[in-house]
């Protein structure tokens, strides 16, 4: 197997009772890059990470980390990776320093260098001041940073980050992104799962979109954006009362992917002839248009275009995801 891939999986499958969490997933990440694993809740992202991190064994297929099979060479894989899960997996009753010291000592680092490593990481993650306090007094963002620090104690060359920013406020999220960028600049390879499209857009070199345990698209963020039509037509009627009428007119001209988004109607377009046709029909119906634009689709729209038709109405799916995200946030908060 070529060493240029730090992370590689072929035909990965895992089944939990009646659910196929993974149903033949292929993916790979080149050394020193970030692979974004994108998908809605229950798509199989966490299952994939757990297999790579040797926490789960696949039913079929194989997964390799730096050329080592995650099942047959689990011990070697564990010595190469760092894992940051969805919840901050740190001991609440230990201080920041003690948590990192615990990991360092478990990895066989002698006490003094382990202490030095802990201090170095706490400094880097802006936790020096809080280093002597029990983690239960930490904020959510501080816990996540400590958790990321804990995954770095052994200087892993490959990192698995499972929704590392879920439940964080925008500022903490931005801080975590900066830290991840810094690590990648040092040569670390990362597999990042996320529900946030802008997160994948900002951080990932390549993105694999999975849904219901299958890969449904992959490529660079730009490739993915151009893969689905590439452009979006957006129409905002002057009167909000015309929104429904505008929606049905645009849908008649552009097809069923037309959606209402806020006060505007949007639809991905591939055909350049479409815009004049839409304008004519709106004009014919006497709907005054306040804004009409053709723009590049966001990764958000790519995602919906890819997963939407397979899972029913887009709106419902999106709301369900948002609610699930909130629940997760509550859970994170309630542990403090």
């Amino acid at each position: 197997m070529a060493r240029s891939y730090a992370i590689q999986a072929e035909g990965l499958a895992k089944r939990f009772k009646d659910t196929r969490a993974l149903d033949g997933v292929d993916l790979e990440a080149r050394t020193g890059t970030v692979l974004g694993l994108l998908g809605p809740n229950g798509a199989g992202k966490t299952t994939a990470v757990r297999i790579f991190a040797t926490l789960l064994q696949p039913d079929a297929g194989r997964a390799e980390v730096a050329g080592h099979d995650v099942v047959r060479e689990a011990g070697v894989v564990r010595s190469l990776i760092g894992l940051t899960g969805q919840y901050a997996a740190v001991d609440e009753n230990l201080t920041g320093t003690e948590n990192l010291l615990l990991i360092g000592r478990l990895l066989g680092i002698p006490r003094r260098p382990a202490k030095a490593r802990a201090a170095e990481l706490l400094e880097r993650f802006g936790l020096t001041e809080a280093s002597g306090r029990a983690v239960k007094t930490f904020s959510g963002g501080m816990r996540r940073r400590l958790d990321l620090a804990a995954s770095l104690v052994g200087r892993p060359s490959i990192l698995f980050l499972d929704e590392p920013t879920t439940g964080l406020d925008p500022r903490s999220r931005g801080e975590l992104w900066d830290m991840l960028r810094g690590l990648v600049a040092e040569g670390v390879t990362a597999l990042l799962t996320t529900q946030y499209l802008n997160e994948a857009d900002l951080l990932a070199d390549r993105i694999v979109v999975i849904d219901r345990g299958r890969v449904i698209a992959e490529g660079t963020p730009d490739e993915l954006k151009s893969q689905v039509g590439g452009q979006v037509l957006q129409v905002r009627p002057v009167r909000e009362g015309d929104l429904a009428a505008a929606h049905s007119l645009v849908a008649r001209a552009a097809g069923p992917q037309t959606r209402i988004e806020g006060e505007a109607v949007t639809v991905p377009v591939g055909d350049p002839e479409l815009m004049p046709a839409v304008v004519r029909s709106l004009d014919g119906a006497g709907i005054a248009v306040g804004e009409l634009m053709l723009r590049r689709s966001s990764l958000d729209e790519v995602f919906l275009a890819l997963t939407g038709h397979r899972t029913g109405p887009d709106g419902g799916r999106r709301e369900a995801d948002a609610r699930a995200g909130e629940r997760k946030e509550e859970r994170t908060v309630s542990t403090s």
Partner: protein
Amino acid sequence: MTATAAGAPIGAGGRVRPGAGLRQTATMAWRSLVAIKHNPLELVDYSITPIMFVFLFTYVLGGQMAGSPDVYLTYALPGIIVQNTLFMTTYTALALNTDLTKGVFDRLRSLPIARSAPLIGRITADLAKHVWAMLLMVALGLALGFRVTGGFGGFLAGALLLIVFAAAVSWCAVLIGMLAGDAEKVQAFGFTLIFPITFTSSAFVVVDTMPGWLQAWADVNPVTHLSDAYRGLLLGGEVGRPLLWSLVWAVGIAAVFYPPAMRAYRAKT
């Protein structure tokens, strides 16, 4: 070939070396003990509650039970210590359950360490806490008039018996900790299991006054055997039979709960 993490205790075949496994177990035990510093509530569990029980049984119940607090203390203190030891095994289940639900076990399992280190480290640390609580209660008992007439040898043998029994019951605690959905369920389960078992025994009363059917149970209750054996060792009485039965029960409990506990641990962590 990517460089291995600094100093990772992994042999050529990717397996953890035995010496490293022992060190990791000690590190995990350290983690359980150092947490007390930042969680004073744990001190309450392991210190204040036992002290409270000794006072309660001696001064509130003692006069009624045996005519005088001093006489009752001599009978009841070993029973109180036995009951407290069994109750404290719930904390093992609680701590393991918290590690499981909070994702700490995931982190630990992604490290190149012996699979058993987190479990054995926890049990070892908790046994040390058992010893601490036992010493505290004996010391308090001595201050209140209890006399270890069985001598230092009896005291040591008694301590050893309690540790062996607690270690056996720990496997039941491991199973509960692994299977329970959350900490509340662990507590409820521990309470509803241990409370009736300890009170339907000779820990606090002579079983003769119980109705026949209950006496029949109390006579075979492991807590009866353990209380009688521990009492005998501390006070210097005849211990052969209860000691033998205590050890039989300890072996039986370990034999019944160890396999499913390990299976659950391997499946869940």
